[in-house]
C-alpha cells in the first residue's frame, strides 16, 4: 500500500511546487499529472475521490490565485471536457461520425449572447439585456435549444452512415457558422462577423471573482455531465446506442427503435455543448463566428479519439491533453525555443540566431500537434484510456 502516501505526497508536492513557481509550465503539468496518477493509483476509492476533490475544489482555485492564467486554462479544459463527453455519446457510443459538433456549442452560446446583451433590443423592442440571474435559466434554455437543433440535424441524416453522415454533419456545422456570419440582415440576429458584445455575466455568489466563478461552474457542469453520461451508458439507452454502432441491422431486428435512439443520441450529445455554450458566451463577454469554426469540431473529435472512443475517462483525459497541449505545452515550447534563439545558443556549431524566420517555433506549433496525433494513432490507436467493458456480478 505504498501508493497511498505516494498519492497524497505527489498531489501535495506538485501543488506546493506550483505555488513556489507560479510561472513554470512544467510544474503546472506536474500538478495535472499528479491528478492522473491519483486517478490510476491503487488506493481506496474514498481516498481517491477525496484527493481529487481537494485538488480540484481547493488547490486549483488557490493556484489560480497565484497565477490566474492557470485558472483560465482549467476552465477551458472544463469546457472542452463537456464538449468531448457530448461528442463521445454521438461518435463513441452511437457510432455516428459528426464533424459539425461545434454548431451546437455555437447555438448555446448565441442563445445567451443575443438575450444577455443589448443586442436583443434590435430584434425585440427594449428591455435587454436580461438581468444577470437569467443566465441560470439560459443554461437550461441553451440545453433545450441545442437538443432541438440536434434533433433537427438528426432527422435528415437518419438513413446516412459513415462517410456520407460525416460529410452532411460537416456541412451542417458550416451552415450554422455561415448563418451566424450573415444573419445580420435583413433582421440583425447575430450581428454578423462583428460578433456580439457586451454579454452579461451573472451575479457571483459570495463575491467570488469571475475567474474562480466560471471555473467552479464549469467544474459543476462537468461533474453533472459525467454522471449523466455514466447513467446513460449503463442503461438500455446506452446499450441500444452501442448496438447501433456495432450492427445497425441486427440492432433493429433485436427491437431497438432506430429512429428514436439515433435522435436521442444527437439530442443528448448536443445538449451538453449547448449548456457549455451559454457558459462560454458569458465568460468571454464577446463572441463572434470565429469561435465556432470547423477546426473546433475537429479539435473536439481529436480529443475523443485521442482519449479512447466510447470511454468517459478517455474523453476527459483526451480533452485535457489536447487543451493543455494547445494552450500551454506547444506555446511554452515555442517560447523556450525563442529564448534559446535570442540568447544566441549554438547547436552543433550552428547559431540558432541565424535560423530563418520561416523556422520560427511559433509557426510549427500546429505541426507538432499533428505529429503527436499521427504518432498516437500509429502506436496507440485505441486511445489513452480505451473503453472497458463493464463486468457484471454474476451472482451464484
Amino acid at each position, binding site marked *: 500500500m505504498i501508493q497511498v502516501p505516494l498519492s497524497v505526497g505527489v498531489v501535495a508536492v506538485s501543488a506546493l511546487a506550483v505555488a513556489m513557481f507560479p510561472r513554470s509550465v512544467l510544474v503546472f503539468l506536474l500538478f495535472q499529472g499528479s491528478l492522473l496518477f491519483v486517478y490510476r493509483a491503487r488506493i481506496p476509492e474514498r481516498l481517491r475521490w477525496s484527493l481529487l476533490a481537494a485538488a480540484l475544489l481547493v488547490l486549483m482555485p488557490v493556484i489560480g490565485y497565484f497565477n490566474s492564467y492557470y485558472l483560465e486554462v482549467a476552465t477551458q479544459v472544463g469546457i472542452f471536457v463537456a464538449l468531448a463527453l457530448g461528442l463521445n455519446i454521438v461518435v463513441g457510443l452511437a457510432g455516428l461520425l459528426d464533424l459539425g459538433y461545434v454548431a451546437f456549442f455555437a447555438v448555446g452560446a448565441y442563445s445567451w449572447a443575443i438575450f444577455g446583451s443589448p443586442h436583443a433590443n434590435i430584434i425585440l423592442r427594449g428591455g435587454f439585456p436580461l438581468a444577470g440571474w437569467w443566465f441560470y435559466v439560459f443554461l437550461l434554455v441553451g440545453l433545450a435549444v441545442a437538443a432541438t437543433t440536434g434533433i433537427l440535424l438528426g432527422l435528415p441524416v437518419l438513413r446516412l452512415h459513415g462517410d456520407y453522415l460525416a460529410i452532411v454533419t460537416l456541412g451542417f456545422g458550416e451552415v450554422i457558422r455561415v448563418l451566424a456570419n450573415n444573419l445580420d440582415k435583413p433582421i440583425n440576429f447575430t450581428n454578423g462577423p462583428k460578433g456580439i458584445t457586451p454579454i452579461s455575466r451573472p451575479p457571483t455568489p459570495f463575491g467570488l471573482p469571475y475567474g474562480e466563478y466560471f471555473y467552479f461552474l464549469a467544474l459543476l457542469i462537468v461533474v453533472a455531465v459525467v454522471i449523466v453520461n455514466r447513467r*446513460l451508458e449503463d442503461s*438500455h439507452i446506452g446499450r441500444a446506442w*452501442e448496438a447501433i454502432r456495432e450492427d445497425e441491422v*441486427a*440492432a433493429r431486428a*433485436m427491437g431497438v*427503435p432506430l429512429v428514436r435512439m439515433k435522435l436521442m443520441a444527437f439530442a443528448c450529445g448536443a445538449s451538453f455543448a449547448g449548456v457549455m455554450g451559454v457558459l462560454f458566451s458569458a465568460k468571454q463577454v464577446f463572441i463572434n463566428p470565429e469561435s465556432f469554426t470547423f477546426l473546433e469540431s475537429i479539435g473536439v473529435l481529436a480529443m475523443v479519439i485521442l482519449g479512447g472512443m466510447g470511454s468517459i475517462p478517455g474523453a476527459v483525459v483526451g480533452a485535457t491533453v489536447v487543451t493543455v497541449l494547445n494552450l500551454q505545452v506547444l506555446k511554452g515550447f515555442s517560447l523556450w525555443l525563442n529564448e534559446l534563439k535570442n540568447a544566441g545558443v549554438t547547436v552543433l556549431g550552428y547559431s540558432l540566431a541565424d535560423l530563418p524566420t520561416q523556422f520560427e517555433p511559433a509557426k510549427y506549433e500546429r505541426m507538432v500537434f499533428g505529429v503527436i496525433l499521427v504518432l498516437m494513432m500509429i502506436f496507440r490507436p485505441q486511445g489513452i484510456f480505451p473503453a472497458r467493458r*463493464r463486468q457484471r456480478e454474476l451472482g451464484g
Partner: protein
Amino acid sequence: MALFEARRVTKRFGGLTALHRVDFALEQGIASIIGPNGAGKTTLFNIFTGLYAADDGSVTFRGQPLLGLRPDQITALGICRTFQNIRLFSNMTAIENVLVGMNSRIALGLWDVLSHSRRFRRTESHLAARAIALLDRVGLQANANAVARSLPYGDRRRLELARALAPEPALLLLDEPTAGMTQGEAGTLMRLLRGLVADLGLAIILIEHNMRVVMEVSDRVTVLDHGEKIAEGSPREVQENVRVIEAYLGTRGAGPRGARRA
C-alpha cells in the same frame, strides 16, 4: 386462424423476382424452409422481420398484419430471429448482447435512467437475472462477461440464439443455425430447440441446409426454389417429392440445374 401466416408474398429486386407468390403458415412446433442457394429463403425471413418491404402479399401474426411495420415493432409483437452470418454486437459482452435483445420489453423513460429511480434499478436487476438465465439455457453462463468477438464460433451461434430469445418471442426465425457446426454440435442444438418448443411453447421457423437435422427435427418442411414454393408437407413426404429431388439433383437428361442458376 394460424399463429403466423404469409400469403402470396412477392419480392422483386430490379428485374429479378426473388419471391413469387409464396404462401406459408405455421400453427406450432418447428417448420423448416429448405431449398438450393438463392431460392429466396433469407429474403423471406427479411420480409417476415420487416427488414425488407414486400412488393405484394400479406403477412399476419396472431391476426395482426405485419407488412409496413418496422423491425423493432415486429420484434415487440413477438417475432425474433438470428442471422445466417452471425451478427452479434461484437465489442459488447455476451450478457450485454442479450440485454440489447430485451430493449422492446423495457418501459423506462429518460428520466428513470437519469435519476436512477427505483423502477430503473429494479428493472435492471430483473433484466440481468433473466439474461443470465437465458445464457444458462444455451450453456454460456460462464462466458457472460466475455466480449462477443472473443467467443469461439459455436458459442457465438448459441449467443445469437440467446439474444433472439431475449425479447420473449412466440415465434423464432433461425437462419441456418447449425452452419459450420459438427454433426454432434448440431444435434445438441436441435435438442435445445426441441426443449424450447416444449417448455416455452415456442414456434420456430428454421432455414437449414443440414438435411439430417431438417428431417429429424421438423414437423413440416417447405421447399423453395427460384423464389417459388415447390413442395410442402411432412419431412417424409417432401423427401419423396419428385420436384424436390429434381431441384436438388437436377433432372436426368435435362442438364444440370445448377448451370441455369449460375
